[in-house]
């Protein structure tokens, strides 16, 4: 038994513990104990991983293990991590840990589905077998339906159904893409590394086939990564979801999309990515700008943040589609950064909503005097989101734009400049929002009676801010780790993709 599997085992044990738990105290006990274990485990994993790399181990994936599962179809349970997945596991653990404290008053069934969702997320990031990955991917999607449908707010039934069906529609395309990759590569292995390394100088998957399966796979994962025009589930879903679910979904689950696009679609079909990547590059460019402008005109706190997520997650796909080591490293940093800031945002919005019972920014003002702690944290979150130096967002966006501008042709440069405008627009909506709801004089008598954050809320928020600041002020340890993971993938893609100039803009 490989120790990576413990990442899935702990959530399963937590499920068992929750099932047996009888009162609120033991439910909280199980959740706190389990999520702390996961946090420690991912910290230990990071240390071990860095030690291995420092000791000169240059294997693409470390701590790999593989067990036969469904032999006739060559399906294995294979696990392994590289720099990208270690970073993602760390992110997931932080979000699950803080999410537990944010949903302090929720009941047992809520935590059951919440834990199942996190089991899927962890499983996805440790798998290197396409089938196992796909299975965990779907495990992570379906609990959202009940989490939003039962514990959500607003038009929750509509939002839950829309989100589930759109994401499952994406995974239908994805499944087709996986079959295409598997049989295109000879039908001998589902292991991502094996498929990639089998191509000795030639394309294992026929180029004509790559042109069919690359768009299917990329769009399949792209739905979860809020790729325009498949992003419409995201605002509705995030706005209706309960706080911790929004955190986990925007913070971690949307990263599954970007990770999958990079790890499966682009890594295994380099020529497809080279020839057709420009279509998706234009679409993500639209996501980035359109998301930012949409956020400007929203009046609901959660909708603002959801559109902001569309914009920032667009940057993730934007970075990886540049097929350039700096930009791709920036994209993974952006996954981390966006995951943390958006989780912080959603946590704060949930806490404010829990007190004021409204998320309409027109009905709130002067909150700074009423709840100073939450308001100060909200300002910090806003500044982190718009990319102030010292926070993680600055590092990530800077790296992406520097990397993508390094492409010498006009097409990529014009797109980069267009995407850069989103930074300005982000500043517009964040500052407008902060000014509107936090400063000024409170016009609502009821709001004057409200209290500030409780201890568990303060704890969760401080954890998140601490991580964001740590990432922003000392990014080198994590960016080196990510770089070591991104480098082989980008090298592989550039080595196998011949320039066929299918892009009409070049």
């Amino acid at each position: 038994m490989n120790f990576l599997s413990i990442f899935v085992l702990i959530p399963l044990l937590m499920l068992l513990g929750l099932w047996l738990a009888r009162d609120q105290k033991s439910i909280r006990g199980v959740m706190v104990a389990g999520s702390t274990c996961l946090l420690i485990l991912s910290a230990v994993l990071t240390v071990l991983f860095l030690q291995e790399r420092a000791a000169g181990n240059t294997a693409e994936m470390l701590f790999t293990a593989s067990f036969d599962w469904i032999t006739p179809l060559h399906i294995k349970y294979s696990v392994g991590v590289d720099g990208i997945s270690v970073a993602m596991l760390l992110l997931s653990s932080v979000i699950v840990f803080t999410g537990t404290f944010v949903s302090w008053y929720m009941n047992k069934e809520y935590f059951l589905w919440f834990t199942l969702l996190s089991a899927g997320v962890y499983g996805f990031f440790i798998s290197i077998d396409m089938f196992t990955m796909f299975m965990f991917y779907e495990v992570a999607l379906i609990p959202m339906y009940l989490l939003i449908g039962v514990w959500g707010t607003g038009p929750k039934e509509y939002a839950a159904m829309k989100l589930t069906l759109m994401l499952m529609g994406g995974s239908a395309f994805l499944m087709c893409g996986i079959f295409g990759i598997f049989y295109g590569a000879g039908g001998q292995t589902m292991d991502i590394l094996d498929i990639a390394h089998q191509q000795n100088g030639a394309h294992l998957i026929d180029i004509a086939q790559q042109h069919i399966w690359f768009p299917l796979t990329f769009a399949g994962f792209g739905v979860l990564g809020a790729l325009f025009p498949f992003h419409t589930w995201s605002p509705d879903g995030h706005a209706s979801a309960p706080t911790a679910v929004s955190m986990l979904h925007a913070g971690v689950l949307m990263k599954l999309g970007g990770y999958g696009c990079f790890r499966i679609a682009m890594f295994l079909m380099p020529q497809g990515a080279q020839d057709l990547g420009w279509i998706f590059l234009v679409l993500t460019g639209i996501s980035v700008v359109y998301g930012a402008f949409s956020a400007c005109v929203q009046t609901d706190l959660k909708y603002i943040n959801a559109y902001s997520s569309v914009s920032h997650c667009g940057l993730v796909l934007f970075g990886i589609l540049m097929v350039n080591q700096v930009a791709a490293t920036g994209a993974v940093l952006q996954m981390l950064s966006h995951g943390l800031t958006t989780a912080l945002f959603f946590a704060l919005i949930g806490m404010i909503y829990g007190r004021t019972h409204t998320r309409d920014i027109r009905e709130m003002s002067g909150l700074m005097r009423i709840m100073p702690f939450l308001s100060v944290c909200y300002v910090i979150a806003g500044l982190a989101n718009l990319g102030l130096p010292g926070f993680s967002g600055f590092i990530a966006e800077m790296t992406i734009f520097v990397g993508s501008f390094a492409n010498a042709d006009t097409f990529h440069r014009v797109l980069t400049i267009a995407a850069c405008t989103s930074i300005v627009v982000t500043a517009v909506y964040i500052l407008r929002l902060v000014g509107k709801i936090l400063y000024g004089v409170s016009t609502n008598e009821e709001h004057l009676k409200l209290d500030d954050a409780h201890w568990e809320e303060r704890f969760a928020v401080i954890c998140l801010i601490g991580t964001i600041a740590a990432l922003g002020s000392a990014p080198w340890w994590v960016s080196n780790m990510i770089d070591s993971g991104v480098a082989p993938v980008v090298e592989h893609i550039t080595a196998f993709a011949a320039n066929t100039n299918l892009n009409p803009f070049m």
Partner: protein
Amino acid sequence: MDYSQFLHMPEEASLLAVILILFLADLFMCKEPKDGETISQKPSAINVVAIGLLSIHTLINLLPCCNGCMQATEAFGGMYQHTPMMTVIKSVLNIGTLVVFLMANSWLRRPENIVKQGEFYLVTLFTLLGMYFMISSGHFLMFFIGLELASVPMAALVAYDKYRYESAEAGAKFILLALFSSALLVYGLSLIYGATGTLYYSSVGALFSGDTLLSVIGLTFFLSGMGFKISLVPFHLWTADTYQGAPTVVTAYLSVISKSSAAFVLFTVLVKAFAGDSLMAEWNTGLYWIIIASITLANIFAIQQQNLKRFMAFSAISQAGYIVLGIMGGTAQGMTSIVFYILVYMVANLGAFAVINVIEQNSGKIRIDDYDGLYETNPHLSFIMTLCLFSLAGIPPFAGMFSKFFIFMAAFNAGYHWLVLIALINTVLSLYYYLLIVKAMYIKKNEHPIAQFQSDGYTRAALVICTTGVVVLGIGGVFYNYIDTLSYGIDKMLGAL
């Protein structure tokens, strides 16, 4: 005559023994009514005998290695054929029938049914015997006898609640359409006989090399007859009414056991008797459109249903479409995925029907909006129903996702890429209507929800079997691996069969 040939058919012999013992037991187990009691108030212990005997039968025939039939054999000059895979599919049907018997108990204990408890078990087992012969047939005549033995008693089962006019009506509809489709099928067989002069699968297969008019018409009639049994579009018109009118237990039996056996037989007959290249292209084309029609139309109709049994009827039609997907190309991989799909579909569908049945027996409610707020009053039943529906929709980690993945993979490998994509898009549609029920149970509020009740021990046993199956079958890869070692297709026929 060489009587030792009967030893080649242990499953049929043992099932026949069960039927005979049960028949005698039913005669003598009727208790004498005391003064002032009518016979109908005295439940006999026949249910224990039936369930016990069927369990023994299931256990001794469980796997080909248990009853010494690892070899493919034949008897009666090739009329009866037997491969290890057939033992597997028969065991699957056995387990399904056992679950049906377990869930039937609460329904059979109703006052109007007590007096005819024994008949239910006997008639059901006779249809099962018919399916056995159908599966093991090596000759179209044998196949037809099995088919009739499986259909005619089924009409009696459908009309079992004779005091309810819907049940009687459903029985009449079923028998009329069953006979009509049998007539079509027999006409097709006569054309095949006319074209080849033989009815043995192997000889027909050898003689049917080109697609002459006779062979294509024969094939068409054969496909429509089987399409009726599997309830594929456009032969599905009886399904919704019959499923709605029949007693819920019988609906469960019809939708799983009867359908699955017919799908398996369709596979074996197509790859044996119609394996010629040009003829294979014909039935692949036919099935291609039948599958698209079945999956899509059934999904669209299922969305609009309010009665759960009608809803399950349309869901079963679309599931049948997925099962038939494994037949495309007639490969060994297809056979493995079909048998695995049948196994998984059986536990999931029977689990859902067990919940529907127990709720119907306890509260008489059968509409989807009656299920609003069920989670508040009966959390365990709602939970099991959710697991089963998720499995039917293909959500991991439940078994349904595995079986769907494998059957799509088989069809994809056979070269039907677009068909797989269409089927995959349809799974999203089906997820929508399965989620409607989950939504009713968990999310919607109801002022008068179904009252809390304790389900009986037999139903619980059935639910435990189904839930275990739904959870274990997929994650435990051994099941698929084992089935795969026994499967065969056009490319890999076992021995001479």
